[in-house]
């Protein structure tokens, strides 16, 4: 059987009718590889124009690719859905065991549509789906408990993924996430709220199958070569301190967003750095098929106040973005404090970046008198992590109108209460933690998912800063960003982890694909990347997205970056050029 045939089964689940079926979609997998390439096409087929992101007409697409679970670091599942945060097609990637489980359930993609009238969870084993009542799981305070219950109730240990939402998803917090295997997430753009709107508490996939490799000798050879690179310098940073290694260099550069982007330097950076957290590092973990083990857990040992001979030890995953969003950007320098805030978002199931940026806006709005303590209930002050901890729970519990609005994201909150000039978002999505320069901010405005991962343009800024090079004209910047974003569409279709982007150059990709029977040259791959790039952006345009309407938060222009002040004119020219180019190409 050809590899395309092997990976091209799509499982469709209709939650309204409680039915499911499998279709072979070789048409899609042969043309678009897999991952994001295929997911965009399935989204186009399933989600009608004007669909309500939280209505039954929205669909969740999960896709893996040809390299999934058979090559090192091919460890991502790509989710595509309409975002309740941005109102357009969204994309979020997650690792854990999900890619391997989906792949070896014999599937290339899963499409979940409709909505259940009562809470359910799904168990997918091979091509069979069981609908299970989730009444007992609904409303559980911690998403970790939900995971534990399902772990014990279901078979397939070691060969399964347990995706679930927390209370944030149930209560439709627009930036709720989907947690998988406790420490990985479909983090951004609100997939958790889409699960919640469909009354889908969890999705368990068990993968017990295998695939015959067409050219086993070539496969073993390509695998060994790629594994060696994956274990070397290309992933050293992720391997050692993890992404937390970014804290100190970004701070030194003046690019670590601090107190709602008021500054690029944080005096408390040392205590939330990867180096400091090493003292609490308790375990490192990997996604299936990845030797890097970038997932870092810190242990907090804590004495009970009323029972001094009782202690609890909790493990908290930490990554750079969380340390920025719940650390520097809230002025929190207490090491344990920031870990405890991470713990709260883990239990509630919401995106740390969006939640942190929303709280940073609220803190400043309170300082400036746009809102009062009546709204926030707790006094929000930079660095006061106990107050932020309570506030995070309020976002989920929504005890008053203010928190109901804050749960809609910072864009909605600022349009209701004011302070748009310091509400950090691009098209509704709160930014990741880089105030590196104009290319990064431009990339957030024009990126397919308005994410730092679209093109990794913070790296371009950093490169310019360290080389003391001239910043390219905005039109040239757009070209650089589009070119990187296009190549990443290939990686996201394969679907490899972007931490492996230095492992999977065009040569390695072709070699890996060849061993699986694909005849794709480097040029063809590049063209494919461009086509997928265009597809993604064209879908958004057809949904009514207008790049020219993206607001530039004034705060971005007021705080200097390592490349000086970002100007509105620069960003506007870039956005204009992007809009014209993409419309022309799309015709």
């Amino acid at each position, binding site marked *: 059987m050809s590899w395309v045939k092997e990976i091209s089964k799509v499982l469709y689940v209709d939650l309204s009718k409680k039915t499911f079926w499998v279709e072979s979609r070789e048409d899609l997998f042969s043309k678009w590889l897999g991952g994001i390439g295929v997911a965009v096409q399935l989204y186009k087929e399933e989600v009608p124009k004007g669909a309500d992101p939280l209505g039954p007409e929205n669909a969740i697409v999960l896709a893996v690719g040809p390299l999934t*679970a058979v090559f090192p670091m091919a460890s991502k599942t790509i989710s595509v859905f309409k975002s309740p945060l941005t109102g357009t097609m969204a994309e979020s990637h997650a690792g854990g065991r999900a890619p391997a489980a989906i792949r070896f359930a014999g599937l290339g993609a899963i499409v979940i549509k409709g909505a259940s009238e009562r809470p359910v969870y799904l168990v997918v084993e091979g091509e069979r789906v069981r609908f299970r009542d989730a009444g007992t799981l609904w409303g559980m305070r911690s998403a970790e408990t939900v995971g*534990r219950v399902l772990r014990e109730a279901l078979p397939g240990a070691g060969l399964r993924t347990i995706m679930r939402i927390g209370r944030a998803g149930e209560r439709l917090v627009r930036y709720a996430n989907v947690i998988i295997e406790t420490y990985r997430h479909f983090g951004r753009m609100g997939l958790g709220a889409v699960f919640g709107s469909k009354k889908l508490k969890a999705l368990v996939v068990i993968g*017990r199958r295998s695939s*015959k*490799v067409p050219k086993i000798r070539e496969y073993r050879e390509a695998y060994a070569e790629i594994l060696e690179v994956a274990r070397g310098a290309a992933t050293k940073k992720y391997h050692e301190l993890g992404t937390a290694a970014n804290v100190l260099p970004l701070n030194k550069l003046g690019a670590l967003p601090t107190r709602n982007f008021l500054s690029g330097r944080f005096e408390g950076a040392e205590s939330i750095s990867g180096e400091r957290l090493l003292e609490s590092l308790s375990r490192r973990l990997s996604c299936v098929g990845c030797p890097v*083990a970038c997932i870092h857990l810190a242990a907090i040992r804590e004495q009970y106040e009323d029972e001094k001979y009782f202690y609890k030890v909790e493990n908290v995953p930490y990554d750079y973005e969380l340390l920025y969003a719940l650390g520097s950007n809230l002025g929190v320098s207490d090491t344990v404090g920031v870990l405890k805030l991470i713990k709260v978002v883990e239990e509630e199931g919401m995106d740390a970046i969006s939640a942190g940026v929303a709280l940073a806006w609220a803190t400043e709005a309170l300082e400036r008198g746009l809102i009062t303590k009546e709204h926030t209930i707790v006094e929000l002050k930079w660095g006061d992590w106990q107050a932020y901890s309570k506030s995070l729970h309020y976002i989920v519990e929504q005890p008053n109108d203010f928190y109901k609005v804050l749960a809609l994201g910072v864009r909605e909150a600022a349009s209701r209460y004011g302070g748009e000039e310091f509400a950090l978002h691009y098209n509704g999505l709160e930014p990741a933690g880089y105030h590196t320069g104009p290319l990064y901010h431009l990339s957030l405005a024009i990126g397919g998912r308005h994410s730092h991962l679209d093109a990794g343009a913070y790296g371009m800024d950093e490169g310019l800063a360290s080389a003391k090079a001239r910043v390219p004209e905005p039109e040239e910047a757009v070209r650089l960003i589009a070119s990187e974003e296009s190549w990443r569409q290939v990686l996201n279709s394969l679907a490899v982890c972007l931490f492996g982007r230095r492992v999977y150059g065009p040569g390695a990709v072709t070699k890996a694909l060849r061993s699986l029977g694909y005849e794709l040259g480097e040029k063809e791959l590049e063209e494919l990347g461009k086509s997928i790039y265009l597809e993604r952006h064209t879908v958004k345009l057809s949904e009514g997205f207008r790049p020219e309407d993206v607001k530039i938060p004034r705060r971005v222009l007021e705080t200097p970056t390592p490349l000086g002040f970002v100007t509105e004119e620069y960003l506007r020219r870039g956005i204009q050029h992007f809009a014209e180019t993409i419309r022309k190409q799309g015709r």
Partner: protein
Amino acid sequence: MIAAKAQRLVVLDANKCVGCQLCMLACSSRLTHVGPAKSHLLIRSAGGIERGFVVVVCRACQDPPCARVCPTGALSPLPKGGVRLSSSKCIGCKNCVDACDIGAVLWDEELEKPLICIQCGYCVDFCPYGVLGVEAL
């Protein structure tokens, strides 16, 4: 690819296991099929991955219970420990799976036969963190 000398797999330090399952993939790719479910060893979480992992490998018992419960003689004990599967004799009754207290007799769902480790040690080289080793019997 049968192990030339009498040896067995050992778990040197399960605490260093990160759960990447490269060993499982390697085991499956030793043959022509890939997929963790074709693996003769299993990495699973110890009740949630925050508690780390359980590394399940066949320990090549001296008097293997799996062989004793096989009704068709498909599993033959080896002189120094461990068993060999004679696939043509196996009727897929799963007695061996139940008999192994450490859960090291895994099941091939596609062929309905047990996955019996031959102690070749191929997986060892793929572990990035030195969790697995081999020792002579």
